[in-house]
């Protein structure tokens, strides 16, 4: 169980990106974070694994205070928290296999990893992870020779090397076209069904309806909604995205046949003059 308590982040330049945000995520949930661009989604996810240092508040993973951990203790906690990035964050010049193996760095000894000496077990694990992502034959390729969807799958394979209990996914499909979005999210959904908790920020509401088990919404760093995807009606939608939000039917996006309304990519409201 992950609980976030009164999380606040003020950047050195004075921007307060998160204001007193609290929520809990039960094991096995697929929690989606929505909100406009700049509402603090990335800041929230990065505060959870302390890539960004929160200003106030606590993050507890199964009762262990992540925010209080230092040095080695923090690195060991991070091993349980996988992360998937919008821009994949692969080393473009390195091979797919090396990129995947780098997900194991939290477990391997410093000296051995500096020399590039990976155990047979680690290599096995990497091949297995690539296999699960349908990339078994791409291990030796340079990462930047793969398509965007394949690169994101490499990113997920890298995360799997951590044997994570929870995966933080920061707009994992925002750099991909809608069809690929579903393919990536289905991989995450599969992992979720196998018991990994997923915390994912998304821009497209139809994806939220299709994959989320629960939703929280941020607006200007404040949590303005927490509930089931079905509870986001027109009024809630306007509250989250502002009065001027426009709805555009995204007909190209396949939707689940659940009867939930086809929903929309959101155009951010025009910035106030």
């Amino acid at each position, binding site marked *: 169980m992950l609980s976030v308590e009164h999380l606040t982040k003020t950047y050195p330049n004075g921007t307060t990106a998160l204001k007193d945000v609290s929520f809990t995520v039960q094991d096995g949930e697929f929690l989606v974070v929505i909100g406009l661009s700049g509402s603090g989604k990335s800041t929230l996810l990065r505060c959870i694994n302390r890539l960004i240092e929160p200003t106030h508040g606590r993050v507890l993973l199964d009762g262990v205070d992540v925010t209080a951990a230092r040095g080695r203790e923090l690195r060991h906690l991070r091993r349980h928290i996988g*992360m998937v990035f919008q821009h994949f964050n692969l080393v473009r010049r390195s091979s797919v296999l090396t990129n995947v193996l780098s997900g194991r*760095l939290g477990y391997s000894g410093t000296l051995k990893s*500096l020399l590039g000496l990976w155990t047979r077990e680690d290599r096995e694990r990497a091949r297995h992870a690539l296999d699960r992502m349908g990339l078994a034959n791409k291990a030796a390729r340079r990462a930047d020779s793969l398509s965007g969807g394949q690169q994101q799958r490499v990113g997920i394979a890298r995360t799997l090397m951590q044997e994570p209990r929870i995966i933080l996914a920061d707009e994992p499909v925002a750099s991909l076209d809608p069809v690929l979005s579903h393919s990536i999210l289905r991989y995450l959904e599969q992992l979720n069904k196998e018991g990994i908790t997923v915390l994912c920020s998304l821009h497209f509401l139809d994806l939220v309806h299709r994959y989320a088990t629960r939703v929280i919404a941020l607006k200007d760093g404040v949590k303005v909604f927490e509930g089931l995807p079905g509870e986001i009606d027109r009024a809630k939608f306007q509250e989250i995205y502002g009065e001027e939000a426009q709805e555009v039917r995204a007909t190209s996006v396949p939707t689940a046949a659940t009867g939930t309304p086809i929903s929309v990519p959101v155009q951010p409201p025009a910035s106030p003059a």
Partner: protein
Amino acid sequence: MIAGLLSLILPGLGQAWAGRRYRGAVVFGAVLLAALVTYWYGVPAWRLAPAAIWLWNVWDAASLARGQERSAFVPVAAMLVMAYGIGWQVTQIDLASLTRNSGRAESILGPMLHPDFAVRREKTNTAWAPVEVPCGPHPPAATNTKDGATVTVAPDCGRLRDTLAVKATGLWPNTPTLVQWATPIGNRLALGAGFAAPLTVASGPDGTLEARIQIPPNALAAAPDPDLPLEHRVYLTQARAEPGFRLSENGRYVVEGIGQTLFLALMATTFGAIGAMLIAFPAARNLMSANWLTRSVYFVTRMVLNIVRSIEALIIAIVFVVIVGLGPFAGVIAITLHTIASLGKLYSEAIEGIDQGPLEAVRAAGGNWLQMVRYAVLPQIVPAFASFTLFRWDINVRTSTIIGFVGGGGIGFFLYQWIIKGDFRAVGSSFVAIALIVIVLDFVSARLRTRLV
């Protein structure tokens, strides 16, 4: 009006009074600079420049007070005219001198166009006989046979200026033969007119030679005791041209100097690159922004790099020549230091320019700082590092060709001495050699670099 008056008293004051403090400060600075420069170089005509700016400044201040801004054409033009005028004078530009000394140019360029690098191969044949000077009680026979050539001198001994008869058989036939006197310590003395010119005698068609010589008056100049009988020698030397060329003596020095230069550049580039790699990481802002401690490490290393980089390798070499002595080692240290500073800056900028994403990914996976550098930073920077290093190697070869001028070893060391000695044929051959290696390295390093990117 008031503004104009104020500016008449103190340039820039009027502008400041009209609310344009910055403009005022610039105007004041310009007048002050122009006045100081013209005062220092002391040519009265140039005082027109500060005067013109002063006048313009009064006009400008008056206009500004009326809300009108004057173009800065007049002061800028005055400054430029002054700068180029004084510059011409200070750098002593004298175009006529280019043609005035054509004789001198010829005496330098002539030999330089005949570089002393190789000479025709030749074969020599030497033979000698001992002569005792002065005569002892039992002088040994003045005859000796070597490689089939026999030289006999009569009488067997003598005093200074005595006349001796030299006979030889078994020499190369019909060949000019140099006849020389050799003292016991090996000094070769000429036996021609006035004991200053060489004495050359042709051998006969049967390989025999006859000559009359006088014992040189200075044959005992270095003797510890002029009454002690010692063995001197008469040397016969024949030379014959052979096909092909060999390195001349200076040619050998050129080769040695070039070799030293290349190795000097290689060592300095290698040591410099290693040093730069170590220092580049603490000098990269993106790796050092974690807290105030690492940030101050960043600032200090950056500052040191900037200071060292601003000192020419040639000047660093002067210091190290004093510390470690003349020779290539001083050059290696100087160029290494300069390389660390300049490569360190380039490396750290390459590090700052990398994609931050992979760094984030390694940290998120629980990796530590070293692992982050190894797996997220290094793969991104290796090509850029290699390319910068090759480029630096190229520059270092150029620097090490001249570092010898201050005693830092390499071809420059020889070049400097040849210039002082006035041996312009050797100067010419080192110019050719330097140009050749610089062109070749330029080409090679450019080729390698395009492959890397």
